[in-house]
């Protein structure tokens, strides 16, 4: 129970379904702020109190579990390290993978619980090979992507009561149930950067390292304060001194943390036709060999049809180009609406352009 409306309604439904429910708020910040400041950030003391009040209303026990040390090590430090290495991190996936459905679930099971329920928008179905993870009904809220790293064992112990609902209906239900969080704004972006200034956060951790922005020919076109401030596909915040020869916008094509160089170029160079991925995980039984499915590379991105070949590593050939793929990004593989698994993008093959 984060203190948000989704987890509150999820808890309410679990109670109505007759389960023995205990509400748990995760203390993930070492220095929680007093109040929730705007829509960014999460887990302030005010959020904790909102979760507690919702639990009171539902008549269920409420506890706060401190996982701040694990969160720093597994999510925040990983976030900084990935940027430092020139890759794009996935803090929400790491959190689900290492904290929520791992450390928290393990503790719950050890204390005699049977399963964890959350307010994630995703659906579970009973299939011939066990529990299946599917997209939610509300495409705007579907969070199956961030759950794509879960294993079948974790899914067997999970419940997502909101998978079949549209968000406005969930808010209305919260209001009907008298939950004070019914009108509370959703939190988005990164929960541990409450002011939304990722660049500033990274700079406070990694310091400023001035370097060059270059074009594809290696010519300097600008300066930066640290390659860790950039992500592949980025267009804003480049502050380039002079426009490109063709006058069109430039995008970050490559980040080299060793030389502290950022390479920029036109949009076409960002289009990729194939992906190579490492460290696959399976949310369904292992599926080796080639198969036709779809892949999604962003939390709220459009999936694209693809031919997938997943072994110890994965090769994905896309039916249509994707733009702005960064190493370190997670690719989640779907068969229809079912999440089959995920892997970490290590390389992307650009679409060949006629010379």
């Amino acid at each position, binding site marked *: 129970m984060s203190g948000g409306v989704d987890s509150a309604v999820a808890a309410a439904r679990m109670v109505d379904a007759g389960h023995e429910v205990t509400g748990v708020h995760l203390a993930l910040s070492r220095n929680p702020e007093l109040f929730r400041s705007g829509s960014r950030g999460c887990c302030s003391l005010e959020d*904790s109190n909102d979760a507690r009040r919702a639990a009171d209303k539902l008549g269920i*026990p409420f506890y706060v579990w*401190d996982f701040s040390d694990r969160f720093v090590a597994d999510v925040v430090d990983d976030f900084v390290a990935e940027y430092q290495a020139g890759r794009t991190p996935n803090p929400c996936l790491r959190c689900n993978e290492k904290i929520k459905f791992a450390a928290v679930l393990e503790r719950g099971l*050890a204390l005699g619980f049977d399963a964890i329920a959350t307010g994630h928008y995703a659906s579970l179905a009973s299939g011939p090979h066990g529990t299946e993870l599917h997209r939610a009904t509300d495409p705007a809220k579907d969070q199956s992507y961030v759950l794509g790293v879960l294993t079948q064992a974790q899914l067997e112990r999970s419940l997502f009561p909101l998978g079949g609902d549209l968000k406005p209906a969930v808010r209305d239900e919260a209001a009907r149930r008298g939950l004070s969080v019914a009108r509370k704004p959703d939190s988005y972006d990164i929960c541990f950067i409450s002011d939304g200034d990722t660049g500033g956060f990274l700079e406070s951790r990694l310091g400023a390292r001035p370097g060059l922005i270059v074009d594809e020919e290696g010519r300097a076109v600008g300066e930066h304060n640290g390659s860790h401030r950039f992500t592949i596909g980025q267009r804003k915040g480049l502050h380039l001194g002079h426009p490109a020869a063709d006058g069109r916008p430039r995008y970050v094509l490559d980040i080299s943390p060793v030389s502290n160089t950022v390479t920029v170029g036109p949009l076409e160079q960002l289009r990729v036709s194939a992906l190579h991925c490492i460290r696959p995980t399976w949310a369904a039984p292992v599926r080796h060999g080639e198969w036709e499915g779809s892949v999604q590379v962003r939390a709220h991105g459009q999936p694209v049809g693809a031919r997938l070949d997943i072994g110890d590593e994965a090769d994905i050939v896309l039916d249509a180009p994707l733009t702005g793929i960064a190493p370190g990004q997670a690719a989640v593989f779907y068969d229809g609406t079912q999440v089959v698994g995920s892997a970490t993008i290590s390389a992307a093959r650009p679409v060949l352009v006629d010379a």
Partner: protein
Amino acid sequence: MNRRVYLDHAATTPLVPEAREALVRALEIVGNPNSVHAAGRRARAVLEESRETLAECIGADPAEIVFTSGGTEADNLAILGARSRPGRPHILSAPIEHPAVSEAARFAHVADAQQSLSVTSDGHVSLAGAAATVNSHTALVSVQWVNNEIGTIQPIADVAEVARRNGAWMHSDAAQALGHVPLDFAASGVDLMSLAGHKVGAPVGIGALVVSRRISLAPVSFGGGQERTVRSGTQPVALAAAFAAAASRAAQRQADETRRLAALRDLLVAGVTERVGDVELNGADPVSPAVCNMTFRGLRAADLQFLLDREGFDCSTGSACHAGVAQPSEVLLAMGRSLSDASACLRFSFGWSTTSADVESLLAALPALVGQARGAFA
């Protein structure tokens, strides 16, 4: 298990019947005790009678009683009120104090070097340490009478003598002492003593600071000048009456109750020693019979507390909560225990309504729950 077993009397204890009767009776009285007319005088009389009753319980003069909203306010008035003693910038206390003392002391203490009183490994303030630390720059020494986490009884009279020799004031937070150990303010040599009503079966919201006639305490909040100007505001007559009734009962029954609770505590300790392995009792003699703090090695205290809660037992990890998350015990850390030991202790505390059946129920449930909590820790 239908009936819950309440074993957190050190946090708060049920209203005693005498206090409820006194409260309800006094609520009928309409009148501000500061008004000079008949209605006011009637309220004033009940207030002053309560003051006299309380004073008699604790060996103080009625003029020395300042009614407050509770123990925390009493601690703050004592510590902040000592701040302006000329030439004496230091407020000294030990790291085993309740936050109401330690936080106020932290605010009030003017330190070139942050000093505190040292603590022995068995949970008592070191007298030798106090003698070495208290000096002519000390405004106030504050030592609790009974520690709220582990129940150890502190060497109050001896530390008071050290303070007196140095011209420092002596304050003692006696919230956990009333009813469990003999309390005689006049005989103790203490200048300031805090009491909390809800620890002895009065409602939450009433306490007292006992201020010796010898000293002049500076007020920190202002208004109509009530309670010797130390604590302005309309006094809560009904709450004071309830407090006096509860304190009176506690003082009268103290000797018998101490024996009764000591037997319950012995029963618990013996039972745990027999049925659960790798447990250490925290807090060596002299110790209050009302508090039993034990370290259960190899588990997270929060997990065991959670399991006991689910099983119907209300008990505490003893240490302060920050935002709902239990912290390792500062008291155990101050005694030199390891971080893991300080994160593995639970406090069971007894009160007027505790019976041997409560202790037996706990003993029956503990072994399995300790096993489960240890399994969750591995």
